[in-house]
């Protein structure tokens, strides 16, 4: 994985499903569920059916076939497992791997598989299944959004049934992380678009297209048995209908709430629990750093100083959300607090503009996606920047136009967008990315970080890159979305962060009464 890890899948989902998909939060753990979990532990029903309300219905059941984020939400860790697991707290822990050895040069990874693991069909897990599973993600016809990050894999060998040897063409410190979203599927499985054959704690019970996806407990599971008997993902197309379903008890938990104003009805009501974590979704004013006047770092810094991010965040999210000073959320290992860099200061913004030769300001066109919160954010920027003499012309576009005009053709001056991914600072190491930020130091740091010998070295490099992009005001990072999960108070133990859209259901407990 080098600087050009563009998450194409993520963006094409944007074009297809627009707002819903991109709003999807790959969120990281901040708040633990422990407080709520303690209260209910005593009397939970081990065979309970838990209904999870979601807006993200999968298009099909295969995450290499463009199924959308909904399939990761329903299947990651629940139906399919991977060699490694990305926990809700953001750590990478061994999954189906019992033991790993890394060669001196970092180019050969040897994985010993867990013994006695079987697929839902009854077949045993073998090294061939793992090889097949990785190969289907990197195959030419794979639509996996993660394909490019596995591009350094040059070969996979299977010396025996329990051993997988992965050879790399270049060091890739993120390999275990990247393998955490490669589902291990049975190589004999036929139709993965409408069926499944994984090793997870649940098996697919019934998929009713347009409505629900039911998973039932896998009694032959190798690990700890789930604390419930059945999980049903109930799909909604409308957030209000979803909220009403929770109010009336038709669903037990909502995977992510997208507006602070719909939380009001659940807060301060003892029948519901509201948990707010920090997501990895960042609202960005992205400049086209290639074009005038945004190729001038002083102009970008001036704009960052002219905008009161705190007031904006408060307008959009009320008491929720977090301010960020760069593209890195607090839950990435290379986070440092950079909110002090180009903090809100109108006078110094004016001074910088003058130095840059724009004492009288200038005007620019802001390509604004037509869905919430972008239009309202655009209007806020318009009034803030007017105070330093910059005139913002708001051009409202659709998600599809954004994809073709901004993302593909780079035909824009500035735009608003939210970026959902976890660990995505690497975008700034790719000068061909839509925002065209090109700093050779950052490109090198990001390249070197992937080739680092250990995670400390990787973290050091990326922290450095993080500081540089903040000092360069490569983009203007407005705020970090909160990740809000609302549930009935009878239900506990769900993940609050849904990192990379995951929603592990196996620890959910529902009280028996």
């Amino acid at each position, binding site marked *: 994985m080098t600087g050009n890890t563009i998450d194409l899948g993520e963006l094409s989902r944007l074009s297809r499903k627009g707002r819903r998909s991109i709003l999807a939060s790959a969120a990281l753990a901040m708040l633990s569920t422990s407080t709520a979990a303690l209260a209910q532990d005593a009397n939970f029903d081990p065979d309970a059916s838990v209904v999870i309300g979601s807006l993200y219905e999968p298009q099909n059941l295969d995450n290499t076939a463009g199924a959308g984020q909904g399939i990761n939400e329903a299947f990651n860790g629940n139906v399919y497992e991977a060699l490694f697991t990305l926990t809700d707290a953001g750590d990478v822990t061994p999954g189906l791997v019992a033991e790993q050895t890394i060669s001196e040069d970092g180019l050969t990874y040897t994985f010993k598989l867990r013994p006695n693991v079987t697929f839902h069909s009854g077949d045993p897990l073998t090294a061939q299944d793992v090889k097949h599973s990785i190969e289907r993600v990197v195959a030419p016809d794979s639509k996996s959004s993660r394909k490019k990050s596995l591009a350094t894999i040059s070969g996979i060998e299977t010396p025996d049934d329990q051993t997988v040897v992965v050879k790399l063409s270049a060091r890739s410190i993120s390999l275990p992380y990247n393998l955490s979203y490669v589902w291990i599927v049975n190589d004999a499985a036929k139709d993965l678009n409408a069926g499944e054959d994984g090793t997870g704690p649940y098996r697919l019970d019934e998929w009713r297209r347009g409505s629900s996806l039911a998973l039932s407990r896998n009694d032959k599971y190798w690990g700890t048995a789930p604390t419930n008997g059945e999980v049903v993902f109930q799909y909604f197309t409308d957030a209000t209908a979803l909220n009403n379903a929770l109010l009336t008890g038709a669903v037990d938990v909502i995977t992510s709430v997208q*507006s602070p*104003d719909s939380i*009001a009805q659940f807060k301060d009501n003892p029948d519901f629990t509201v948990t707010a974590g920090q997501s990895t979704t960042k609202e960005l004013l992205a400049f086209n750093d290639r074009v005038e006047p945004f190729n001038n770092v002083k102009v970008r810094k001036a704009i960052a100083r002219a905008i009161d991010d705190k*007031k904006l965040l408060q307008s959009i999210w009320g008491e929720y959300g977090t301010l960020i000073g760069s593209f890195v959320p607090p839950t990435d290992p290379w986070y440092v607090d950079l909110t002090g860099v180009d903090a809100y200061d109108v006078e110094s913004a004016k001074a910088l503009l003058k130095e840059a030769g724009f004492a009288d300001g200038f005007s620019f066109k802001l390509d604004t996606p037509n869905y919430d919160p972008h*239009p*309202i954010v655009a209007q806020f920027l*318009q009034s803030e920047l*007017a105070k330093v003499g910059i005139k913002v012309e708001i051009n*409202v576009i*659709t998600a599809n136009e954004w994809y073709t005009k901004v993302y593909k053709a780079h035909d824009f001056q500035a735009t608003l967008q939210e970026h959902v991914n976890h660990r995505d600072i690497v975008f700034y190491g790719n000068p061909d990315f839509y925002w065209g930020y090109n700093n050779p130091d950052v490109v090198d740091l990001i390249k070197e970080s992937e080739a680092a010998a250990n995670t400390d070295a990787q973290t050091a490099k990326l922290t450095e890159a993080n500081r540089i992009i903040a000092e360069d005001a490569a983009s203007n990072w407005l705020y970090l979305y909160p990740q809000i999960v609302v549930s009935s108070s009878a239900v506990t133990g769900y993940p609050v962060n849904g990192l990379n859209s995951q929603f592990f259901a196996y620890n959910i407990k529902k009280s028996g009464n």
Partner: protein
Amino acid sequence: MTSLDLSTDRPARRHSLSLSIGLALVGLNVVVAILTLFWTPYDPLNASGGRLEAPSWLHWVGTDRLGRDYLTQIMIGARTALIVGTGAVAIGASIGVTLGILAAFATRLLDDVMAATLDILIAFPTLLLAMLVVAASDSASLWSAILALGLAISAIVARLTRILAKRVLRQDYIIASRTSGTSWLGVVAWHVLPNIWPTLSVNFALQFGLAVIAEASLSYLGLGAPPPNASWGRLLQEAQGTVYTAPVGSIAPGIALVALVIGMNLFADGLRDVGDPTRRRSR
């Protein structure tokens, strides 16, 4: 009072009622729209209020998420609505009446072709047509919305004009007028237009109301006037997420929209009763 007086009195009162309510509602809008050119309670970009404040003396209709005054936005929305309604009807009327009259004079074959084309255009959903025009132009603007709606209206007006004009052209006095040397242009100016005008004007008023709703729909979808030009449709869209916590944000622009459209419809109704001699006689 004799019974004869009563029969003429009653319809007269009816006319004045719908006409005057309609005029009052539309008039209020016009006054507000003109007022915004000189004065609004706040600068529309001024975000000095709190988030979603409830109505108060400072902000009569409360504030939006950014702390901007809703009343100011709604007042400017009235201006946008009037500009769109007037602009779209003006475009629709000029193209529609011209095409309709040409069709009425055309040869049988050409007339048939034009009539069929108009039917197809009318069958095409207005909003879809508007979206196409907006998509074809560089970026969404008030003018692309007006043009799109004007084109949609012109098809309806053209069909109506064609039918009405044909009916007039069949009358004996047209032949009389032609034989006495009046040119076709003169016939149109002296006989056709004055005769079809009462029906057309009622139609214009109705189309005006529809254009206002269509503009609100386009703005709701982000295809209308770009911010900061307030539009009721966009206000509704922006207030959608806060409908439970701050319902006034969605109710107020909704009422403004309904008031103008109902006002325009009542006005059209009254206009028809007053202006259409056939109806007056039939009552």
